[in-house]
């Protein structure tokens, strides 16, 4: 699986500091993004702690099968997906502990969104309102569900999509890292296909830029980094009210895979021809 990776984070046009963090581990095919909250209470500390804990835990697990597990593994999920959930539980605990032990850090929290690729298999884990999108055959699909009050009201039919967009409650999360001793991580698995684009982003993007605009930007900027740069620029052009972080992953099968398939195919064909000529000879 060949990956074209692009990423960018930006402070925006309004805020004084960037509380978003991201971490890319291309060797592991692991990509993590976090949006910190808490303003003076150091949201950037929380988001850095989130991405670093998830990265460290998955790295440890990749080298040590029996690394400690946090939370309860689910029987229907792959090992990688269960491991991501474990990493999110650990990150929550670390942020919760840090918030409790340091008066300056009280009240800090973070979202987290992690994507781990195992060949074409994608494992996702998230808490909060950072989103994963899949662009396939020109259609953009949101893979994650926001853990926000507005999204929940919308799901229950209590408000309309228009009301949701103009709601003043947009920053109220129903789930976040650090808020409580334990947190439930949403997990999911998908099969990625050649030509797919996976987008991970903080709400700084999705509050400023509509889904159709995100889709057309991804479609018109082929290089992953160019698409990431353009998405952040758009968010800023429309006001840049929050920090914006995007990670763009373009999925393609490596040329050597095609080469091997071709070789196997010609070998099979050769074998069959040989068999036929032998049969013909007798």
């Amino acid at each position, binding site marked *: 699986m060949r990956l074209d990776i692009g990423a960018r984070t930006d402070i925006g046009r309004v805020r004084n500091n960037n509380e978003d963090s991201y971490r890319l581990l291309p060797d592991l095919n692991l990509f993590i993004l976090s949006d910190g909250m808490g303003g003076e209470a150091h949201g950037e500390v929380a988001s850095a702690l989130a991405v670093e804990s998830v990265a460290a835990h998955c790295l440890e697990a990749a080298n040590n*099968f029996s690394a400690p597990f946090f939370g309860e593994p689910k029987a*229907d999920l792959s090992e990688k997906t*269960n491991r991501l959930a474990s990493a999110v539980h650990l990150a929550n605990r670390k942020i919760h502990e840090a918030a409790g032990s340091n008066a300056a850090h009280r009240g800090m929290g973070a979202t987290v969104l992690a994507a781990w690729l195992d060949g074409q*298999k994608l494992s996702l884990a998230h808490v909060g309102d950072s989103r994963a999108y899949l662009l396939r055959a020109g259609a953009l699909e949101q893979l994650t569900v926001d853990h926000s009050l507005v999204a929940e009201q919308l799901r229950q039919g209590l408000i309309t999509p228009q009301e949701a967009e103009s709601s003043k409650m947009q920053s109220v999360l129903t789930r976040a890292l650090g808020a409580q001793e334990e947190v*439930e991580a949403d997990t999911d698995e998908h099969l990625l296909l050649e030509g797919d684009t996976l987008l991970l982003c903080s709400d700084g993007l999705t509050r400023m830029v509509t889904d159709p605009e995100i889709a057309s930007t991804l479609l018109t900027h082929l290089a992953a980094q160019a698409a990431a740069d353009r998405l952040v620029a758009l968010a800023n052009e429309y006001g840049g009210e929050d920090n914006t972080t995007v990670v763009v992953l373009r999925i393609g099968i490596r040329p050597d895979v095609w080469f091997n398939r071709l070789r196997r195919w010609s070998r099979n064909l050769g074998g069959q021809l040989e068999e036929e000529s032998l049969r013909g000879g007798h």
Partner: protein
Amino acid sequence: MARLVLKFQESPLKEVPIGSRPLSIGRAPDNDIAIDNLAVSNYHARVYPEAGRLVVEDLNSLNGTFVNELRIERAALRDGDAIVIGKHHIVVDTAHDAALPLDAGRKVSAPKVDETMVLDTKERRQMLEQALAAGERSPLAHTRVRVPLLSVLSGKTDRKEYLLSNKLTVIGKSQMATVRLRGWLAPQVAAQINKRKDGYYLGRADRVPKINGQPIDGPTRLNDGDLIEVGRVRMTFLCHD
């Protein structure tokens, strides 16, 4: 280390360590505990850790799974319990463990009732689950699990039946596929089945599969008895209540 010990007439035949991965028991040779006996179904039962305990689940086997003397569909296991399948016993040995290995990092906290708290539905559900986990094993209070089955009617695959117990089931020739297609023209990843909250959805990969003769247009929910065609492979989706 926690382990399962397969015994026949009191003599141990095999030992399998319990990790975080589910262990399968059945007659097919690719089970973790394979029992070559006609009384045993191909994929008979499985054992896995859940909520800090070990659980055994019968996979709709023909002759049933017993824990000690009771027939079960799903039950929590304790040290010394015997899972009885046909004439074989599988004894649970967790005596030398402080806790199940996967619990190393988990903190078990009992629900606090002496504090004023606001319960949302999620917390209430969690408290109920904790109460259940802490309680006695009750074979009558089992939850009936519905794991759908893919049964192959024709075409080249590595098995004749597949249990759809995973969130993502890949159909193809690739190593990661659960439903392994044979034949050198078979695509690496032909199609996929995704388990969602409201059911199982068939989706395309390198091929567009058909349901009851119709090519699918995007992920499509499967119903009991649906005929699935992926290339030359024909399968039925069985999901009985």
